[in-house]
């Protein structure tokens, strides 16, 4: 009833292609997060599911019915809009109850539901305020309440928590999850908050330039990104990338080599690859004991330190004189490496350090196509230890 399917859906504006041949197959009751860079087509996708935008090509299905040309009201969807879109001429109560009143619910039922929704979004006592008498976050919560009072087959939420503070977000997250469980509806959720996407969703759909890059459970996306884009996009701070080549002995680049048998990961020597390693998989040599499958030691110098409270980000320069350029347009920065360490680590700026990588968490991508080649290197020079969730190469 609530499964949503997009078949070869595209949306072209005059000179822009907002969504490009998108195929999505969302099961009834699933919680899907759409993530991707700004302007990649997330909202457009949502609007096409809601029926607010008619696809230029392709078909949209909701629960077996083709709805491509059906008006929004007949699709059984509720939506939280990115731009909030409260009705400025109605107070909070009327905004929230709008959909219910349209359906002629009786007064008490409406009252009950509105009060419950207001409770969930912590707006009790503000029901008679007008939208322009509220703060940004309060308005956003009204928008959420407006969607959740109804019992639609599909919830579409476009960055519903963007204006909320951390505590409230956590609260809202759990509430949404509870709602999801209770109503068993499909939720399609756009967020730019990694934590949200990771913790809430059954699957994450990563979109870039209107094209679907990967749709998989959160940890799969994190640990086994399908390509360079996903690898770089998921995880904050972003994965480190180093360009290099495959030799008989493994991966070689200007500053870092990693030994493995190319045959084991199924690639031939001489291929141009990009190696990826997440900041938390870079360790100080002192912590080698924590790593089951460490790489060679790498000499580096600390550059900037960014203490985050629960961890510290350390920017490492791999070459003498290299600038810690913060330009993240170039995918691979061969001369620097970002590392995250525990907050109580004794480390200073401009200090020489030796680091190792967790080889079982090393990702290899085809430099040209960006496709993933392997996630983690098992065939180790050192004995392999117990590895957690890393996966086999699936290329």
């Amino acid at each position, binding site marked *: 009833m609530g499964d949503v399917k997009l078949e070869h859906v595209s949306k072209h504006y005059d000179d822009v292609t907002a969504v490009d041949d998108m195929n999505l197959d969302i099961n009834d009751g699933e919680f899907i997060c759409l993530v991707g860079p700004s302007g990649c087509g997330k909202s457009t996708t949502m609007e096409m599911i809601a029926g607010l935008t008619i696809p230029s090509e392709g078909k949209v299905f909701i629960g077996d019915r083709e709805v491509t*040309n*059906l*008006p929004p*009201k*007949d699709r059984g969807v509720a939506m939280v809009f990115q731009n909030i879109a409260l009705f400025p001429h109605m107070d909070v109560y009327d905004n929230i109850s709008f959909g219910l009143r349209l359906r002629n619910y009786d007064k008490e039922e409406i009252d009950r539901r509105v009060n419950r929704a207001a409770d969930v979004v912590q707006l009790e006592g503000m029901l008679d305020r007008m939208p322009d008498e509220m703060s940004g976050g309060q308005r956003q919560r009204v928008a959420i309440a407006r969607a959740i009072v109804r019992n639609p087959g599909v919830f579409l939420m476009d960055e519903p928590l963007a204006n909320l503070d951390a505590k409230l977000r956590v609260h809202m997250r759990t509430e949404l999850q509870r709602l999801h469980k209770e109503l068993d509806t499909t939720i399609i959720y756009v967020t730019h908050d990694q934590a949200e996407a990771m913790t809430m969703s059954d699957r994450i759909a990563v979109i870039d330039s209107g094209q679907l890059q990967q749709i998989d459970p959160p940890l799969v996306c994190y640990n086994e990104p399908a390509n360079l884009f996903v690898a770089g996009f998921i995880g904050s701070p972003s994965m480190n990338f180093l360009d290099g080549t495959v030799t008989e002995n493994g991966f070689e680049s200007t500053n870092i080599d990693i030994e493995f048998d190319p045959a084991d990961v199924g690639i031939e020597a001489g291929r141009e690859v990009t190696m990826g390693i997440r900041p938390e998989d870079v360790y100080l040599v002192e912590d080698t004991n924590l790593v089951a499958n460490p790489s060679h030691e790498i000499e580096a110098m600390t550059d900037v330190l960014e203490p985050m409270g629960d961890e510290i980000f350390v920017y490492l320069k791999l070459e003498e004189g290299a600038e810690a350029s913060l330009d993240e347009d170039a995918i691979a920065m061969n001369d620097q490496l970002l590392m995250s360490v525990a907050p109580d680590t004794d480390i200073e700026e401009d200090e020489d350090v030796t680091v190792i990588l967790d080889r079982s968490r090393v990702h290899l991508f085809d430099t040209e196509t960006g496709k993933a080649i392997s996630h983690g290197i098992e065939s180790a020079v050192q004995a392999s230890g117990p590895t957690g969730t890393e996966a086999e190469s699936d290329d």
Partner: protein
Amino acid sequence: METLSETQFAYLLLTPALILLGVIAIYPLASTFSMSLYADQLTGAARLGEFVGLQNYIDLFTGARDFALPSAFLPTFTTEFPFVTDIYSSALMVTLIFTVFSVLFETLIGFGQALILDQDFRGRRWVRVAIIIPWAVPIVIQGMIWFLMFQPNIGFLVGTTENPAIMNQLGLIGTTPLRDTADSLFLIIVADVWKTSAFMALLILAGMQSIDRSLYDVAKVAGASRWQQFKLITFPLILPTVLVAMLFRTIDAMRVYGIIETMAGCQTVPSLSCLVVTTFNAPLYGTSATVAFITAGIIAIVVSVYIVNFASEGI
């Protein structure tokens, strides 16, 4: 209904308006147009004479029918500025002069009034009543008010040669202004501006009230003075409304009749509509229908200025 294509849906929603306009406007116009193809008939029961095709139109444009009209229809053109001989002697020129000045001043004054009504102050409601009152005055009474004001020995705004009133002294008008085309035109424009500025003001005010107030916050912080806020935010955002208001004022001004009839008479200030009504009452139905259609054509040419503007505004 919701599954109709956008085009079908659009036409469906337009149907009631189009039916009404079709029956009440298009059908009569078609009928009137066919009247314009017949000769006038003054005796006998028939309303119209024989079918003459476009002869009525030809006669009007060549001036061959001017004898039946209160004034010439087209001016006599020359090659020297202002390109017409006696600018007050033809219906077309009189109408154009009236239109240009009345629309211009109504827009300016309407703008000023709207700016005032857009402020927040005590008694705003009463100022608004005051500003709308002229618009609510029927044209007959509007005519009477101004007619009496400029009636020698009744109103105080006009005097005699020996004892001139201020307006005479200033040389604005003569002592019998309502028998003089130029003076009357001037006074009729004043009377029209008095009455119809409210129309402009109301529309412009509505446009101003519909602007999202947060844009002003942005502009203020960006350093915009009041004038700049007006120029860069208010004005462009109400421009479509102003254009619509001016468009309809222009059309209305081009059809001016009532205030002329009640203040100075069609013989003194012959507007295009005056020609239509006078011939209609004569009754020269063929000529009247022809003048009506030519008037509409002239209006179409004049308002094409706005249409071009609309097209560029993307409305």
